[in-house]
């Protein structure tokens, strides 16, 4: 491998994927010149196998499969520090959203299942109840992730403080949320929305 050369061409760069990310995120991927400022300020850097600037570099080099298969995109906290500080106006937080959507839609391989499970349950809650019921969210997450004892000590503490409620003020118009979800699904079927 010592003499292996990396060939760069428009084919290996897979511009098609880059353009898809750019269209979804509304941000340029190609404009990044690798100053590394995003990674320097990223609070989640130590949890990622690829720091944010390397993710952009991998995309530029057509290595998107490595990005989608890894856990880094799921460990982005959406704190917006990178997008705020980028000297070249690359909206990395939006690029992360686009990458997660592409990975999510493809149900592709990823090393990070807990974050995806939490996201899925969060969205199901919205669709069913119109609002987030934290107690239900946490209980179902523990069950489905097989961590039955997670945060066990927090439960009683929160209940005595009245912070976890068994019953909530209900949204009286919850059918409207289902219509929003189905209209979006409909648009996607017709190819009218990403």
């Amino acid at each position, binding site marked *: 491998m010592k003499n292996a050369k990396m060939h760069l061409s428009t084919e290996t760069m897979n511009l098609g994927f880059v353009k898809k990310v750019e269209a979804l995120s509304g941000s340029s991927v190609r404009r990044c010149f690798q100053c590394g400022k995003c990674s320097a300020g990223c609070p989640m850097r130590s949890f990622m196998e690829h720091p944010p600037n390397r993710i952009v570099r991998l995309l530029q080099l057509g290595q998107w499969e490595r990005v989608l298969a890894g856990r880094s995109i799921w460990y982005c*906290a959406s704190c917006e520090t990178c997008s705020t500080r980028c000297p070249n106006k690359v909206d990395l937080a939006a690029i992360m959203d686009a990458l997660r959507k592409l990975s999510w839609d493809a149900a592709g391989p990823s090393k990070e299942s807990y974050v995806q499970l939490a996201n899925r349950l969060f969205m199901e809650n919205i669709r069913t109840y119109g609002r987030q019921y*934290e107690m239900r969210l946490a209980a179902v997450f523990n069950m489905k992730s097989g961590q039955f004892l997670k945060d066990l000590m*927090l439960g009683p*503490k929160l209940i005595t*403080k009245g912070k*976890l409620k068994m019953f909530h003020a209900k949204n*009286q118009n919850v059918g409207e949320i289902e219509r929003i979800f189905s*209209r979006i699904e409909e*648009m996607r079927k017709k190819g009218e929305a990403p």
Partner: protein
Amino acid sequence: MSPNRKFALSYSYYPGCSLHASAKEYDVSTKGVFNALRIGLKEVPDWFCCGATPAHNVDELLSLALCAKNLSLAGKVEGDLAVACAACFSRLKTTQHRLKENDIKRKQVETAIDGPVPLGKKVKHLLEILAKDFGLDKLEGAVQKPLTGLKIACYYGCLLTRPPEVPELDDCEAPTIMENVIKAVGGEPVAWSHRLECCGANFTLSRPGVILKLSNEILASAKDAGADCIMVACPLCHGNLDIRQEEIEQATGRRYGMPVFYITQLVGLACGVSPLRLGLESMIVSPAALLREKNLL
């Protein structure tokens, strides 16, 4: 006649999901302070979840549509939209910002919610209402019990200031709005390093290990700067710093004992709102000893 006509200032109000459960003291104290300052507040009926971080993480269109629906519901209630949660505030304003700039997305969202999106409805965080609309001078005038000697670490977190073109609240790297409010009610803001760092946000559900690291750094920085307490304006930051504080102490072996207040609790205390209407008893790290020591209880 509008029910809010007796007030010079009045707002429509979007509490968000947390304020009806784990952050109920933020809801209670917001109503307490607004009532004391004679600011009208009328909750938007049948509001929905804004989608928070998970929605935009995997489905931008859905996230924009959920916020657009809420803006449309809020459009039926008089007054600018007052938002307490920093995440809801950020999502609602992001939606207006993106849809103003992008006609294709706006049309998709209008189809999704089957109606127009009120892009002109002003969305304001409580901080902005207290500091700018009501005004620091009037706030100073409303103080009955100044927070003298209370050293407060004002914690902004991420979404109140970033990215700057969305919240349009204050400077994104060196904001002062929280400190100004605290000075107006007689408190002492401390200078510290972690006011704009991320607390770990919604990883509290999926990967609590993240919170133990990031929120610990925030608590340590506030403690090292000599703060008696931390002040926040976001229910997620509060949950991570207050509810998980004991766990952080056990993991790191460092004792903080640092009460974490919502901005409305501290302003309310200074403006003479009864502690019973500020939800102080709901805080996991009790502020009772600290407040008694400073003669504030």
